[in-house]
């Protein structure tokens, strides 16, 4: 029974992994300037990223997804723009929403990491004659990356699980495929359990992978002060 649907389930798994991979990489790129701005000394630099982070962390991903997929089309300007070609595709809407969502969380992780770089190290860099920019580039950011990496690993797993809502806008991820199978077979228990096992296997694999990366980078040793 399950074997018959294995190829379809595998396709769904690839869609899920692809969405998560793109979201966490592009999200990280977006989050770097956001996170740095959030840790700024000046309130006017902090303000806009704060609103962004507050909105995306304070509302459900499902709602954000509907806001992008159904909501934006309310405006004629959007429907007539060149972006409409992408914005009417469920896949692109899912990708855009997930990326913006995870960027907010990663920006917060980065802010926390930057702020927990020991003050003495920053002072030492400045005492050596480094400019603020140099201190950021050579001391603070490399240090923050190590401090923030375990939290980033958690975020990847949370994103993987959160991505299970994209089927609601007809994306054929794991859940989308399972929904299709269920409407053919009516075996809800069986295939929801199969989906559960698939997610469980992926999350365990990711957890182990991040443990390895942390060991390679000797994160634990670098945390000791």
């Amino acid at each position, binding site marked *: 029974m399950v074997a018959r649907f294995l190829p379809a389930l595998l396709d769904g798994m690839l869609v899920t992994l692809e969405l998560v991979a793109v979201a966490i990489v592009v999200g990280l790129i977006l989050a770097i300037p956001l996170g740095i701005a959030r840790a700024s000394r000046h309130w006017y630099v902090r303000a806009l990223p704060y609103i962004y982070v*507050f909105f995306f962390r*304070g509302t*459900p991903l*499902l709602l954000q997804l509907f806001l992008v997929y159904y*909501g934006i089309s309310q405006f004629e300007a959007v429907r007539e723009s060149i972006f409409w070609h992408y914005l009417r595709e469920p896949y692109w809407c899912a990708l855009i929403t997930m990326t913006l969502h995870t960027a907010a969380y990663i920006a917060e992780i980065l802010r926390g990491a930057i702020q927990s770089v020991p003050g003495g190290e920053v002072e030492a860099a400045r005492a050596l004659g480094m400019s603020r920019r140099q201190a950021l580039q050579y001391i603070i950011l490399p240090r923050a990356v190590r401090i923030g990496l375990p939290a980033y690993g958690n975020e990847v797993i949370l994103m*993987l*699980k959160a991505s299970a809502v994209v089927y609601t806008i007809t994306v054929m991820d794991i859940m989308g495929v399972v929904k299709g199978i*269920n409407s053919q077979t009516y075996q809800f*228990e069986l295939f*929801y359990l199969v989906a559960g096992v698939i997610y469980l296997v992926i999350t365990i694999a990711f957890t182990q992978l991040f443990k390895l990366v942390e060991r390679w980078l000797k994160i634990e040793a670098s945390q000791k002060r």
Partner: protein
Amino acid sequence: MLDLQGFGPALLEGTWMTIRLSLASVALGLLLGLLGASAKISGNPLLRGVGGFYTSVVRGIPETLWVLLAYYGTTSIFNYLGSFFGNPYLTLSPFIAGTMALGLCFGAYATEVFRGALLAIPNGQKEAGLALGMSGPRIFWRITLPQLWRVALPGLGNLYLILLKDTALVSLISLEEIMRKAQVASNATKEPFTFYFTAAMIYLGLTVIIMAALHVFERRANRGFVRTEL
């Protein structure tokens, strides 16, 4: 102003449902979390195994899937139970299914929070309680629990904020909470942005209220304690 083409009251009802759902799930989740944490730090290897299995399996599977499993996945179990008790159409209500699913997930994360907090309470205090002739449950109620609350509160607060957003998932099984009401209203009016954006503002408003409440709780729980400052 808050009429929103006649859907204002419906959104308010949805908000109330979201609040009730989140509180019911937290109540169940706190209970499961306490049980889970006690199991995980107990001397009995079987209990430790059960606790470990619970947290790793629940945290490895998406909340969405738990909600769907609790509602659709239990159909045949309930049909069977129903026919046994003479009501073949017995199903879980969306509210109960949602509470079970969200409580289960909250409990798994709360287990870790409580476990850390339990380990933070010095063993000498329990020994002192025993020496004073207090019984096990009384030690838990009078000595462990008040301190547990203090240490665990920030972690539990974060979990509650996450749970609040996860309540939106219960709209997938048609519980009439904010998300579902916004969906219905936008289908009827063809103004999806207006209603989803309003719903977003309601979630943000609830978040602000919860954060303020947590601040008050934390100050109360920390009476007499000096906060460590870096």
